[in-house]
Structures are given as structure tokens and as C-alpha cells.
């Protein structure tokens, strides 16, 4: 028994012990000490922006409460409604806030590796006992989680800010400004996609820094790549997440995302909008003219229907907001993981 024990004990105990890696938690201080200025900058920037959005949000919510509780018949009420409707211009309908994810991602993500490579400090960092792959993994994952969380927290505030525009759908009589949950500038400010876009910008920045090896060009490249990706996603990808629904109803809810509308006759495609309608049909429907000399669109649609035409609309209903959020968040998360994996692979095999 003793002999067996002796046999299975490793010959060199010290050697075995020396392979125990440096604990992961030790990187926490390292990351904080090296990136605290950048993280502090992000906190200050997001904090100031959050305070601004908070103040605007209070005003917006007050305006909404005032507009929805007034007597629709009074002239004071129409002023309140106009007041509410005009407040949408303050943040340019959300476009200003679209800048937040790329700015956070680029300014935190791009320097993580680019600064080390630019100043030569990677020769110090990558020859310490911690190991360069683990060092890079700890930095990218920890900072990625931090920026994504910051983005997520900020988007909760933004969601609260825009709430009145979505609630306005419940007061059709008041003619309030409404927003579609799929609106180009608003979809990715809410739900999970804001955090996911921030993470993606960070991951793009990390890879750009590793490939370009200089901080400023890496930041510029990150902003350019992010912009391209965001435009492609918003204009080309998002509409295909789920196949659109088809309806014969003339009035599609304002909250839905209309892909296209066209007219059919006898089950076959006829034309898209009324401008493309056959001349004889327009002639037939233009007389008798409407009250202003021209027929309203509704009158035209009714007239077209009387002539045997059916309008079809393909659309994404507002109820698909969350499925769309999870799909967008999901592929952005997958993309971020992939980009970080590629970055780590480059760190591992980079010849200095």
C-alpha cells in the first residue's frame, strides 16, 4: 500500500504546484486600476446624459398627463396636445441616443489591446505569470459585461422616457404623436438591444485594436464598422427576423411596422399605391369628387373595393416587439462572442 502511494505521488511536487494558475480574481484590481479613468469617463458621460434625459422625461410625462386628462373640446387642450407632440423633437426622435453605444464601445473597447500594442507594454503584460490568453480573456469579458450593463441600465431610462409615445395609442381621439415600437431610431434604444449593441461596439473595438495596434485609428475604424453594421441591421436585416403578417384590413394599426401595401384583383397582383392605379379606375373613382374637389384616400380605397379590388398589407405587428428584441439581442451577442474569440485567437498567436 505504501509502495503504491509512493508510486502515484508526482515525482516533483513543486513542479505540480507551480502549474496552479494565478487566480482570476486578481485581475479585478488590475482591470480597475488600468481602466478606471476610461470607466469613470463613461460613468460621467452616461450620468450627465441620464440626468438630462431624466429631466426631459419628467417634462414629457407631465405634458402627456396634462394632454390626456384635459377636455378634448377645449382650446386649452389642443395647446397641451401640440405641446406634447412637439417634445418629440428634443432628442431628434431618438437619433441622438443612437450615438451612445458606439461611443462607449469604441472608447472602452478599442484601447484595451491597441494601447498595450502601441506603447509596447504588451511585452510586460504578456510575460507575467498570469498568461496572456487569460489576461486578454479577463479584460475583454469583464469590460464587456460592464459596458453592456451600463448600456442596459441606460436603456431602461430611455424606455421610460419614450413610454408616453407608445401609451398614446390608447387615446386615438386626441391625435397625439405616436411611435411604432419598430421605428428606426427607437427600436434599438429599448429592450435588450441597446445593451447588445453596446457590447457589439465594444467587441468590434477590441478586435480593431488588436488588428490595427494603434488607439486612434482603431477608434475611428470601430465607429465606421459599427455605423455600417447598424445601418445594415436596421434597413436590411431587421424586417426579415420573422415573416410578416398579411391583412386585407384597410386600417392597419399605427403601431405596426408596414412592410408593403398593394392591390389585387381576382387573386392577382394589380398595382401598389393608388398613383399606379389604372387610368380608367382613377377616372371612375375621381367622380363624383370629394368635398375638396379631390377624393380622399379613404374614399378612393372604398371606391377601389367597390370595383373588385382588394388591398393587401404585409406588416409586423407591435406584439412582435419582444421576439424581435430577443432575435436582435441574440445575434448581436453571438457576434460579440465570435469577435472576442477571434481577438483572443489573435492575442494567442500574435508574433511580436
Amino acid at each position, binding site marked *: 500500500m505504501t509502495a503504491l502511494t509512493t508510486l502515484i505521488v508526482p515525482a516533483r511536487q513543486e513542479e505540480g504546484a*507551480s502549474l496552479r494558475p*494565478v487566480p482570476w480574481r*486578481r485581475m479585478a484590481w488590475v482591470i480597475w486600476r488600468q481602466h478606471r479613468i476610461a470607466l469613470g469617463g463613461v460613468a460621467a458621460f452616461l450620468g450627465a446624459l441620464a440626468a438630462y434625459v431624466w429631466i426631459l422625461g419628467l417634462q414629457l410625462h407631465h405634458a402627456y398627463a396634462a394632454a390626456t386628462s384635459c377636455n378634448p373640446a377645449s382650446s386649452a387642450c389642443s395647446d397641451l396636445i401640440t405641446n406634447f407632440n412637439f417634445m418629440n423633437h428634443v432628442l431628434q426622435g431618438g437619433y441622438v441616443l443612437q450615438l451612445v453605444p458606439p461611443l462607449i464601445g469604441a472608447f472602452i473597447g478599442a484601447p484595451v489591446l491597441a494601447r498595450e500594442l502601441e506603447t*509596447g507594454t504588451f*511585452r*510586460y503584460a504578456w*510575460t507575467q*505569470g*498570469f498568461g496572456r490568453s487569460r489576461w486578454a480573456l479577463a479584460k475583454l469579458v469583464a469590460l464587456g459585461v460592464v459596458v453592456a450593463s451600463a448600456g442596459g441600465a441606460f436603456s431602461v431610462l430611455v424606455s421610460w422616457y419614450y413610454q408616453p409615445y407608445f401609451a398614446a395609442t390608447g387615446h386615438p381621439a386626441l391625435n397625439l404623436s405616436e411611435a411604432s415600437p419598430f421605428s428606426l431610431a427607437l427600436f434599438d434604444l429599448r429592450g435588450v438591444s441597446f445593451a447588445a449593441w453596446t457590447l457589439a461596439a465594444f467587441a468590434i473595438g477590441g478586435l480593431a485594436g488588436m488588428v490595427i495596434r494603434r488607439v486612434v485609428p482603431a477608434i475611428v475604424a470601430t465607429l465606421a464598422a459599427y455605423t455600417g453594421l447598424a445601418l445594415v441591421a436596421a434597413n436590411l436585416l431587421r424586417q426579415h427576423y420573422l415573416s410578416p403578417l398579411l391583412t386585407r384590413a384597410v386600417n392597419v394599426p399605427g403601431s405596426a411596422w408596414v412592410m408593403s401595401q398593394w392591390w389585387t384583383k381576382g387573386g392577382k397582383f394589380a398595382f401598389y399605391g393608388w398613383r399606379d392605379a389604372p387610368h380608367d379606375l382613377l377616372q371612375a373613382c375621381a367622380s363624383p369628387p370629394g368635398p375638396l374637389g379631390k377624393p380622399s384616400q379613404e374614399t378612393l380605397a372604398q371606391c377601389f373595393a367597390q370595383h373588385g379590388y382588394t388591398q393587401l398589407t404585409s406588416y409586423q405587428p407591435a406584439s412582435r416587439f419582444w421576439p424581435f428584441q430577443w432575435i436582435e439581442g441574440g445575434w448581436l451577442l453571438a457576434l460579440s462572442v465570435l469577435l472576442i474569440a477571434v481577438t483572443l485567437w489573435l492575442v494567442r*498567436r500574435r508574433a511580436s
Partner: protein
Amino acid sequence: MNVVEASGLGKRYGSTWALRECSLAIPAGHVAALVGPNGAGKTTLLNLAVGLAVPSEGGVTVLGGRPPGSPAALDSIAFVAQDTPLYKNLSAADMLHLTRNLNRRFDQAYAEARLVELGIPLKRKAGRLSGGQQAQLALTLALARRPRLLVLDEPVAMLDPIARHDFMATVLTAAVDDGVSVLLSSHVLAELERVADYLILLSQGRVQVADEVDDLLASHRVLTGPTDEAGTYAERPVVHVRRAEAQAHLLVRASADDPVPPGWEAHPVGLEELALAYLREPGASALRGPSRGRHAEPSEVTR
């Protein structure tokens, strides 16, 4: 045990070979100097040994067969890169804290005591220290890791003579007192005479000389004699010929008791002189093992 062992090691950047067919074995317990002209592949060899670069051909192991860059190798090797990169916006104390967190061992008391001794303020940012202080800080960080092998790439190139002297004194103390093996590259030859006891000469990406300094000095002599006889001198392997008006100086491979031809005088050779002679004759080599004694025809260098 060999602290660095390479066989057929080569590294290519694009289409240029920075290092080629490099085979050497540096035994433990030495202060080994890696000497060679600019572009000879010194930094490349060191980067391969510490795992910053990956070989294009051949292989290299450290500390008795460990792959460079492996956890076991990283744990026992401390590297101070050229121009001693430090985080400029971190204080000396922060650099100690950082290095302590990134390694399994770190002798905080030793590091602090050394910085106090060197008069380096712990609270000053690394970027605001003088060049000599930055080099000393980087060296302190490396030594406080209690490595078995210390690798230094051109550690004194940017330093003034006093800082250079102090730096080398620290390295020597670590080697003598703590038994740390040292591998350092340098083209400051005068400094090596005092510290190095193992010499590796690298030229045009190939190893030219690799041996203990004592053995090298014992097996080389400078012969001084009439210039007109220098050309016909072919009894022993001649490494290098230096001709003056009346006299020629020949560095030959010969020991102290080898006979001296009539009309010639033999002198012992210094390390700097020996290194210079080999560097001027890239074709000559003095390696341990089968290739020992191989030499090329000396070219003539006239003064």
C-alpha cells in the same frame, strides 16, 4: 539543465528571416551575454525564448524542456523588454501592486526596500521617472518575481554610464546571491566584460560563438608580428587579421602553451577584443560540440 535550448530555430517576418538555423544550449547558472550587430536577431531570439513570438521553424525550450509561454515557463522567467515598457500613468507603487497581482510569487518587501535604496519615490508616476530609474523599476519588478531565469533585452542601451553601472551591479547581485540565471542582449561590449561569464555571438541571424567566457579567453590568443608574414600565417585557425604599418595582429584559436612562431609575440585576449574580432568576421565561428573549431578563411581588414 539548460535555461534556453534551441535547435534549428528560425523566425521569419514576411519574407525576411530574422533568425535562422539557430542551435544553442545555454546552461543554467550563468550570466549569458547575447551580442551581435543591429538586426542580428537578438531581440527575435529573446522574444522566442520568453514566448512573445512563435518560431517559424525549429524549436526552443526553456528551463529544462518547458515550452516558452507555457504557465510553468511564464512563472519562472522574468523578462525586461527593450526600452523597459511600463505603464506611464501608474505610480511605482501601482506597478508593484500590478505585478504582484499578475504573478504567483512577488517579494513585496524586497521590491519596496530596493526602490527606497535607489531613491525612487513610490508615489511618482512611472512616466515621470528618469530613464535610469525606469530601467531600475522594471528590473526590480522582474527580480521581485523571484525568477529562475532573468531575460533582459538591451537593458542599458538608453542609460548613462552611472545608471548603466548601477543596473548591471543589481543584475550581478541577483545572479551571484540568488543564483538567478541571466540572459541579456547588448551591444555595449565594454559592460559585458565585467558581468558576463557566457558569450553568445549572433550575426546575420546565425549563432557564431556560444561558449563560456573563460574557455573562450583560454582558447584564443592575439599574435603580433611582422605584417609581411601575416598573409602566410596558416598554422592555426585564424579568426581575424588586423594589419598596421609594421605589425599585424592576428586573433587565433590557440591556448597559452601552444608554441609561438619565431618573431611573433602572443598576448591573452580580452572579451571585448574577441567579440569585436568575431563580429568583423561573420564567417568565423566557435561553437561547442561537433562544429567546434570550424572556421572560415579570414578576410583582411586593414587599418
